[in-house]
């Protein structure tokens, strides 16, 4: 074995997440969170802020605890996640299909491209008044809004990912005698999949933001509603607790998508 080959073999056993000590892996993020909370605590204390303006971390934690044990809170989480989940799945699926078709067929691309370019800069929030006008505060309206937000991120990135597939891979597939469809799905789409998956993860953040924003403006349940209701009754601790939940749920969703793409699409 040459030294290069030995080195390459060595690479196969390299752990994926760096070589940091487990204590550091858990400890360092913890330090970040503690610093954030400490800054918050000190700010409240130094400025002697009223808890209506800015409650202390402990008060928010207590509000969070009250929320968690109340049944209504979980209903709100489920409503928001349902709006997110349904819209997100539709948006990702439709976006990838249209993006792949744009990459594969130049006539389709030429037709659809200007429409995509025009619509993708109309941010989801601009649609909220119309969505409420057309669909009221229903699940359907939120679902469509989230699908819309997700769709345009995915169309553009899927088309780009497909076009950036190493042309040699396509040539190899053709040389081996693969059919056009096998080439498109088993080679090009497969090669583009990791890039598409990382865009899907970014799209999840946008979709989640769209859900909450839509709930702020018009909804009967959901985390956005929870926050708006709390703020009208000056329960600032509940407002912040709701914000914390939005952040945590979003991060959780993003982590799940990241885990899925690593498990099923990653090469090593």
């Amino acid at each position, binding site marked *: *074995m*040459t030294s*290069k*080959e030995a*080195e*390459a*073999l060595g*690479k*196969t056993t390299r752990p994926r997440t760096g070589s940091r000590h487990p204590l550091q892996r858990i400890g360092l993020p913890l330090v970040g969170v503690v610093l954030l909370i400490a800054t918050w605590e000190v700010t409240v204390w130094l400025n002697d802020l009223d808890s209506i303006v800015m409650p202390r971390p402990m008060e928010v934690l207590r509000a969070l605890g009250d929320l968690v044990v109340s049944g209504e809170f979980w209903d709100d989480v489920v409503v928001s996640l349902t709006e997110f989940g349904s819209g997100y799945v539709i948006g990702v699926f439709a976006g990838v299909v249209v993006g792949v078709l744009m990459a594969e067929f130049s006539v389709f691309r030429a037709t659809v491209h200007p429409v995509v370019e025009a619509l993708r800069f109309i941010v989801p929030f601009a649609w909220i008044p119309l969505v409420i006008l057309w669909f009221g505060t229903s699940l359907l309206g939120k679902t469509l809004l989230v699908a819309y937000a997700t769709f345009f991120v995915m169309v553009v990135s899927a088309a780009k990912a497909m076009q950036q597939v*190493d042309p*040699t*891979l396509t*040539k*190899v597939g*053709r*040389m*081996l*005698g*693969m059919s056009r469809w096998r080439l498109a799905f088993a*080679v090009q789409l*497969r*090669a583009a999949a990791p890039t598409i998956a990382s865009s899907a993860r970014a799209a999840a953040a946008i979709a989640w933001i769209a859900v909450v924003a839509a709930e702020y403006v018009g909804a009967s349940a959901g985390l956005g509603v929870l926050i708006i209701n709390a703020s009208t009754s000056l329960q600032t601790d509940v407002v912040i607790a709701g914000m914390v939940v939005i952040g945590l749920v979003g991060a959780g969703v993003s982590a799940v998508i990241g885990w899925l793409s690593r498990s099923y*699409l990653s*090469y*090593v």
Partner: protein
Amino acid sequence: MNAVSDPAPATRRGGELIVDNVSHHFASGPRRVDVLQDVSFTIPPGAVACVVGPSGCGKSTLLNLSAGLAGPAAGELRWDGDPVRLGQNRDVGMAFQQPGLFPWMTVERNVAVGLRTRGHDKRDAARITAEFLETVGLTEFKDAYPTQLSGGMAQRVGIARALALQPRLLLLDEPFAAVDAFTRLKLQQEFKSLLKLSAPTVMFVTHDVPEAISLGDFIVVMSHRPASVVRIIEINREDRDRSSAAYAHKLSETLECLGVTSDMDAATDD
């Protein structure tokens, strides 16, 4: 299924490839870039043609046309008497300039996928794959992924994939360029003994004139773009001995056709 899964006879002999007055061009924006101009030569069945020429002169294009991956703008290529058609050609095995391995497949599956696509059953494909991974010395890497390989090793997998198809027409685009000098010599020897086992018709594009002399039955020297054939140089057995005068003669003849002199001092003497 049985008919195709029978082990391909080791003596699948090559056919005749005729390149007849082929010209080709690409569109580069509004401009037309001519790459090949009236290229003609014939590779007899089982012969090895080494194509040498300046970088970017259209050698790779010539391979793509021969494989049926693209159609020529003018002229014709004929394989076994029939015009080369666009699309699938079950006789062709090709190794590209970049290894072009599917990054989501292990080394083993990368080689086997071609055999499976061409109709070999699973067991058959596994057996042939093992055989050719052995040939390129990568048996112990069969479960590795392409990202875990060095450039040279990936290139060898690409070569194994092409060879495993046991093609009647083998097209190689600078297959040993990314391989270190020692491995390259080893692969060249392996390659020669493989050619003795089955005798495919080979078009071998290379930058390396000594390699062309040691592997080719003849050398096709191409000009700058748009490339045409400058000269076809026959290589005989005695020309391959690197210490012989015959070798030195072929080397300088080829380099001269390429517009380089083999006498490095000549340029600085005057």
